[in-house]
């Protein structure tokens, strides 16, 4: 069951105007109907959405508040179907086999669920029924207006677009190869998918076949559940969330020792009044400390809020025991480099997220080498949190006329006019600030042929050495420009 606009169900959402909720990764996490009519979809980048619909109102997503608001919906569904799994605020999965037998058939069950949740939240939900969670999720996305019950997962998935995989880069590559539907992906040999796309390709192939329930990689005989007791009870959300994060760290360390990571985690809390509450959280990828810590925080916030403000069952009197039980263990952990320290990697990640918050995501950058003639062309820049794309220029190509190493350490962001005094085609002196420096030696010119079909002129590059340093400059259309400083 999915509410596409769950993050926008808040008082400051403008009614009738296009609006979107933006997550911490600057991607759209929810859109309302007016925005969807412009073509804005969940998962799009904020800039892309704002380019499509310039009048859109962007709101920052608040997952804790959204989880608190979603708790009554989960509780209502849980009264009809036990063992509900929450994927994120606004989306839940429920195993319906037993409930279908109990209520007679799928439509009877769906009718009861719809009646129940409409009494809590009104309309706006989308319900999809399928044999596996991936197919159910896809069905819910398509179930506009009325619920969609999938009879056969494989045939349903065959017609879906490759974008349903939720992996933008992979979907773009598939399209480039002429593969547009999941059926075409499923028809490819699995071995070929693994050899071309690695574990990501294997995942995509499994999903296209409707095999998204990952089997346990191996028998793990020990009980991997972790638990913490508190005396006095924890009634402050921040403290509880802090302890939850530490517990998440312990759990993942334990499972990591057995070479596995969980896709599902049962969060169980016992209150001082003796009530025990539990909820299963599921993630599309194996949980890491940050994502699991967030979910524990959201769940505890919902329970504490329920007890405090709504006098519901919640966890009245504070938490005396918190327990995490892993399920759906997978051997898909992130493989660290040999010298890499997992704790250090997590710290680096946290630091760079904070830096992005300070300077903006477009100003925290990573780089990759690529081919090119000028030093600036040989660097492929990408945002730190973006998955690097394939280089646009082949590094192994010959690139005749490329400026040789050592490379200038500084490259002006745009070619800057550079005053050079020439005598018979040879540089005599250069102007640095208010003074003229004689040229001690120079090399070049190396000609770069411009793209004449785009009106780009040819340019001659020179390395000029003075007593104040060495410079890379280019001469085009009779003017000299500074293109690098060997600082």
């Amino acid at each position: 069951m999915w509410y596409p606009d769950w993050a926008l169900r808040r008082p400051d959402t403008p009614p009738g105007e296009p609006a979107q909720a933006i997550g911490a990764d600057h991607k759209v996490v929810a859109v309302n109907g007016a925005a969807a009519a412009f073509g804005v979809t969940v998962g799009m980048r904020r800039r892309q959405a704002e380019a499509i619909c310039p009048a859109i109102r962007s709101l920052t997503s608040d997952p804790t508040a959204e989880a608190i608001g979603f708790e009554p919906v989960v509780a209502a569904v849980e009264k009809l179907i036990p063992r509900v799994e929450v994927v994120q605020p606004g989306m839940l999965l429920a195993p319906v086999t037993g409930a279908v037998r109990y209520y007679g058939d799928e439509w009877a069950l769906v009718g009861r669920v719809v009646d129940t949740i409409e009494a809590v939240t009104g309309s706006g939900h989308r319900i999809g029924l399928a044999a596996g969670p991936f197919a159910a999720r896809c069905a819910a996305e398509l179930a506009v207006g009325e619920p969609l019950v999938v009879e056969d997962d494989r045939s349903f998935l065959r017609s879906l677009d490759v974008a349903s995989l939720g992996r933008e880069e992979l979907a773009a590559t598939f399209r480039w190869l002429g593969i547009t539907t999941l059926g075409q992906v499923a028809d490819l040999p699995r071995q070929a998918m693994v050899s071309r796309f690695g574990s990501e390709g294997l995942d995509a192939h499994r999903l296209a076949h409707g095999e998204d329930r990952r089997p346990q990689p191996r028998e793990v005989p020990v009980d991997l559940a972790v638990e913490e007791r508190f005396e006095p009870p924890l009634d402050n959300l921040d403290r509880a969330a802090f302890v939850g994060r530490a517990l998440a760290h312990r759990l993942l360390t334990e499972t990591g020792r057995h070479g596995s990571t969980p896709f599902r985690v049962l969060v169980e809390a016992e209150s001082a009044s003796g009530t025990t509450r539990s909820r299963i959280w599921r993630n599309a990828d194996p949980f890491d400390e940050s994502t699991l810590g967030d979910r524990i925080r959201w769940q505890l916030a919902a329970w504490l809020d329920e007890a405090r403000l709504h006098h519901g069952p919640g966890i009245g009197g504070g938490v005396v025991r918190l327990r995490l039980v892993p399920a759906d263990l997978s051997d898909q952990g992130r493989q660290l480099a040999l010298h890499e320290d997992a704790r250090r990697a997590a710290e680096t990640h946290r630091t760079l997220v904070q830096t992005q918050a300070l300077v903006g995501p477009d100003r925290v950058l990573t780089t990759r080498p690529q081919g090119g003639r000028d030093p600036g062309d040989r660097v492929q820049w990408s945002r730190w949190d973006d998955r690097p794309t394939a280089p646009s220029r082949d590094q192994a190509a010959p690139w005749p006329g490329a400026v040789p190493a050592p490379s200038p350490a500084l490259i002006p962001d745009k070619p800057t006019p550079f005053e050079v005094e020439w005598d018979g085609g040879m540089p005599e002196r250069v102007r640095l600030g208010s003074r003229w420096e004689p040229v001690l030696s120079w090399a070049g010119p190396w000609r770069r042929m411009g793209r004449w079909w785009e009106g780009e002129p040819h340019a001659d590059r020179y390395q000029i050495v003075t007593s104040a340093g060495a410079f890379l400059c280019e001469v085009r259309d009779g003017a000299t420009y500074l293109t690098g400083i060997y600082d």
Partner: protein
Amino acid sequence: MPGTSTAITALDIGAVTGAVRADRDDTVAMLRRHLPAGTSPEAVMLIPAPGQVVGLHGPAGMGLTRLGLSLVAGATEGAVACVDVRGWLCPLAAWEVGIDPDRLVVVRCDDPVTWGRVVAGLLDGMGAVYAEVPHRMREAPLRTLASAVRSKGTPLVLNPLSGTLPGGLAQLRLEGRHITWEGTGVGHGRLLRRRLVLEASGKSVKGMTRIIEVEDHGADALRVVPGLGAAPTGYAAG
């Protein structure tokens, strides 16, 4: 190894954080683990130790950007952050001095107010930080940064775009005095190597001002020219 004892003597063990001060051998072993293969023992003196600030001084073109990148490359095997104020930093130079592209992050920040918070934040999770210092930077945030470097143990190399760093801020102060490029002639050849004459001062060189000549021929950006980097010219004031 004949050069090793010299290098160890040149290290200012006292400048290393209190936690590791007691165990001198461990500290030296730790520092040497971080050095890339082939780093000359003399260059160890220049590599910032954990919790150390290195200040670079000199006009643009004196080769200090590449020198600063070489210093952070040698200081850690972890992630390196470069705070680029002008947006001019060329990662090719960083890769050439030994920073692997996978462990390089460039942060562009030209706002003097945010700059201090950005660099302080990076000290938390990065192996080493190279930062250009914006124009008109006030002294107080720089002092705060220096104390953060001491407490967090991440080496920091500061390259002010104008002016100089406040006195006593950097344990090692390197001032570019002269640069010579080789390889070019009159319209032939190409830049091949450079020789950079530096004046080193500060606590890391025991308060004595030393003249060091560093040769950068591409593969080893921090080769100290032997026999020329020794002559002490007197005691630093203060």
